[in-house]
């Protein structure tokens, strides 16, 4: 690579450091840093690694509960799921790489999040994702979807971790900046969890996995910068994933973890060797000496700078007990993976990097961490949306329903999930589309996990605080609707440029809403990721920001997997609507798809009602009264009913609402805290609901092969499905 020889403030700026930040570097070092040192500072102090714009606000999220074993701060969050097992999970973004090279960007996103989870000792058992694409009319969108879906499948299918759920939205705000958020859930014994804090002066530092090449140098700083036309010329930073090696790495690491050889372990993610070595030593309060000559290299002639910043995939760094290095070496040789002792822990408190007999970097670790910049960036509070003027339905109920179930945000995702292996592992109790959350049994137990990803960006755009709370509430509801008890969340906060006060205002408000919801619902945040600067610079100099998108990954547990229920309509049941209906049409899908408008306030989130209604529904599921359940979200009651009908292949006849609400508002309003439930005896359920202070009413009777509207108009299941299934194949496989 072609790099200028002199390290100065100009070069620092090119590396993403401000003049003020470079001043701090000089003060810490007491001299001009070497190129490698500057590289280390620039990646460690990048937004991606240091969370400098977000850290102050992330502290407002609740992170504890009696079942939380490790909250944020470790590679992934850890919660106790009973019988001596823990679930370990996290979500992470690969937005910028997925725009530049959709296949590899998405694939390496999956690879990266898997490593965060198995590095803690967990066998990965489920992958999910949260995807946002630009307008379907934009020709680029199709290419990006194709690559992202192939990439997620290509990696997840090969490593043999089932992809069991996710979500997809379309909006022109993502035209130049799609979002690819990947989540992994793993299982470990609670007494076999591995952490990253290094310990034991003299202990060997061991590198395992793939060799280091010149991949993705400065990926971490790139993901902290806005996009412009130059982004495409940054292409050589694209990393190629090797899921085959990842699979071997998972097996080798788990085999080694069954011994007592490991003192500390961390994957090499963004900023590769730099962040892993700095963080491990920093957390352990020790120093670390690295000898780069020992690093397995894929290409000749790599410099220290390149090796320290390389983001080559499928690599891990470990500190081992010295008397166990041979055991470890044998395991990695069996799996035909590189294994190299590349350094040792010291008592200096410095990271010292040697290459070709020369000291290329010598940085005190404490100030590198402690003096990392934290910003309290200026913010302006979001403007509350104006109330929605009265609106009227231009079409008949059945025509609107058909249009909605066929729309990009509500249509079937089967074209997508049919490319993901959702059954490998033999533990998938509910596959995508079968329940509001996917259900995966824990091997050798009756326990099952319920997992989901959720966010409604258009609500967040209109009112970030309500949107933040809604995302958490929806994840909680999705888990509840299967019968599982929600335990904790991971999040992926995708926002635009935090240096703009209105974006910072969105960020702060969304966190406030999330924090309230997590608190009331006992649903703490145990891990997460922040992705900022998600905006595109247009040729005319203006910028397009993404919608604020705080994606939530939720996890819940069922003591007995057999108690999990799905959302498919069952024959001969009463269908009960649980929760109050006001007919909130602001920011609804109906408003957007039928009237072409995106305005008004999002539906209110009443957290006390969420809790009350959800706890009631869960109790009734576990008692066996409710036998199928679907939470209400996008599209409201009628879309929810249609989804149950299609999933169960059983029709139903709807009652007249006689609610005093206009029909379109009743049927398509998106009021929160609501569920549809199939029960044998609807009246009895409603009576129990009344006693619990939960609004409930019978809304339909199931049976037959049609959805029959109160007007008597009949819609066949075949017609619904035909509308529902068309969008993706028509967009993607157009010949």
């Amino acid at each position: 690579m072609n790099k200028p020889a002199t390290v100065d403030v100009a070069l620092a700026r090119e590396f993403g450091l401000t003049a003020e930040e470079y001043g701090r570097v000089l003060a810490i070092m007491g001299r001009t840093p070497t190129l490698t040192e500057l590289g280390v500072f620039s990646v460690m102090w990048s937004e991606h690694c240091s969370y400098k714009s977000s850290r102050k606000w992330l502290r407002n999220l609740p992170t504890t509960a009696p079942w939380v074993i490790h909250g944020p701060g470790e590679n992934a969050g850890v919660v106790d799921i009973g019988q001596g097992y823990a679930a370990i999970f996290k979500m992470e973004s690969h937005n910028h790489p997925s725009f530049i090279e959709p296949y590899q960007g998405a694939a390496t996103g999956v690879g990266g999040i898997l490593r965060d989870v198995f590095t803690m000792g967990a066998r990965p058992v489920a992958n999910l994702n949260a995807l946002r694409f630009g307008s379907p009319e934009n020709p680029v969108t199709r290419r990006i979807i194709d690559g992202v879906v192939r990439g997620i499948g290509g990696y997840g299918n090969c490593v043999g971790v089932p992809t069991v759920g996710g979500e997809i939205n379309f909006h022109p705000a993502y035209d130049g900046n799609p979002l690819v958020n990947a989540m992994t859930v793993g299982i470990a014994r609670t007494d076999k969890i591995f952490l990253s804090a290094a310990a034991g002066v003299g202990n060997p530092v061991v590198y395992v996995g793939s060799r280091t090449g010149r991949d993705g140098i400065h990926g971490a700083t790139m993901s902290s910068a806005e996009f412009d036309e130059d982004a495409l010329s940054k292409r050589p930073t694209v990393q190629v994933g090797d899921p085959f090696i990842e699979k071997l790495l998972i097996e080798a690491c788990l085999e080694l973890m069954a011994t007592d050889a490991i003192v500390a372990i961390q994957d090499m993610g963004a900023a590769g060797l730099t962040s892993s070595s700095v963080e491990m030593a920093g957390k352990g309060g020790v120093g670390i000496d690295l000898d780069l000559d020992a690093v397995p290299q894929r290409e000749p002639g790599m410099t220290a700078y390149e090796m320290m910043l390389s983001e080559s995939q499928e690599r891990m760094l470990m500190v081992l007990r010295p008397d166990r290095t041979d055991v470890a070496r044998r395991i990695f040789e069996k799996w035909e993976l590189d294994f190299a002792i590349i350094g040792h822990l010291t008592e200096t408190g410095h990271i010292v990097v040697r290459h070709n007999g020369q000291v290329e970097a010598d940085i005190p670790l404490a100030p590198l961490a402690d003096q990392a910049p934290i910003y309290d960036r200026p913010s302006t509070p979001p403007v509350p949306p104006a109330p929605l003027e009265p609106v009227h339905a231009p079409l008949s109920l059945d025509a609107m329903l058909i249009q909605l179930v066929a729309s990009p945000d509500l249509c079937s995702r089967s074209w997508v999930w049919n490319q993901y292996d959702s059954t490998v592992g033999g533990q998938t109790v509910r596959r995508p589309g079968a329940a509001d959350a996917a259900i995966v049994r824990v091997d050798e137990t009756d326990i099952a996990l319920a997992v989901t990803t959720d966010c409604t960006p258009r609500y967040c755009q209109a009112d970030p605080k309500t949107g933040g709370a809604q995302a958490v509430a929806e994840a909680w509801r999705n888990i509840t609707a299967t019968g599982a008890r929600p335990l904790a969340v991971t999040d992926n906060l995708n926002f635009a440029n935090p240096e703009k006060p209105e974006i910072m205002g969105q960020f702060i408000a969304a966190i406030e809403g999330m924090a309230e919801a997590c608190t009331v619902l006992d649903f703490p945040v145990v891990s997460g990721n922040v992705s900022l600067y998600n905006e595109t610079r247009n040729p005319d100099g203006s910028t397009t920001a993404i919608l604020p998108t705080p994606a939530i990954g939720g996890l819940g547990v069922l003591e007995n997997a057999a108690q999990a229920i799905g959302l498919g309509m069952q024959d001969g049941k009463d269908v009960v609507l649980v929760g109050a209906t006001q007919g909130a049409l602001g920011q609804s899908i109906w408003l957007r798809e039928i009237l072409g408008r995106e305005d008004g306030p999002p539906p209110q989130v009443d957290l006390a009602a969420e809790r009350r209604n959800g706890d009631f529904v869960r109790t009734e599921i576990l008692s066996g009264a409710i036998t199928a359940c679907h939470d209400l979200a996008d599209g409201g009651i009628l879309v929810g009913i249609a989804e149950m009908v299609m999933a169960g292949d059983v029709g139903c006849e709807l009652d007249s609402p006689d609610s005093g609400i206009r029909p379109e508002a009743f049927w398509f309003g998106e009021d929160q805290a609501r569920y549809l439930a199939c029960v044998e005896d609807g009246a009895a359920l409603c009576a129990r609901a009344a006693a619990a202070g939960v609004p409930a009413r019978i809304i339909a009777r199931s049976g037959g092969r049609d959805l029959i509207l109160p007007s008597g108009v009949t819609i066949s299941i075949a017609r619904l499905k035909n509308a529902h299934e068309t969008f993706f194949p028509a967009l993607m496989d157009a010949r």
Partner: protein
Amino acid sequence: MKVRVTVMLKDGVLDPQGKAIGHALHTLGFGNARDVRVGKVIELDLQDCTAEEARKTAEDMAKNLLANLVIEDYAIEVPA
């Protein structure tokens, strides 16, 4: 006019396939194989055009569709 477009990963870009094949060749006793790289080859027939036009068209095809220039290079052959 027959045209052949060969698409290979750029130098420096990890080639997981090539690596795995190299490894397999070694175990099969081909110990002297080095630097195994795998690519795609697309052969086609271009109607009604000269060799020069064919080369030019193939170039356009490679840039537009056949190669992913983010990670791949291409080469064009028009057999005489």
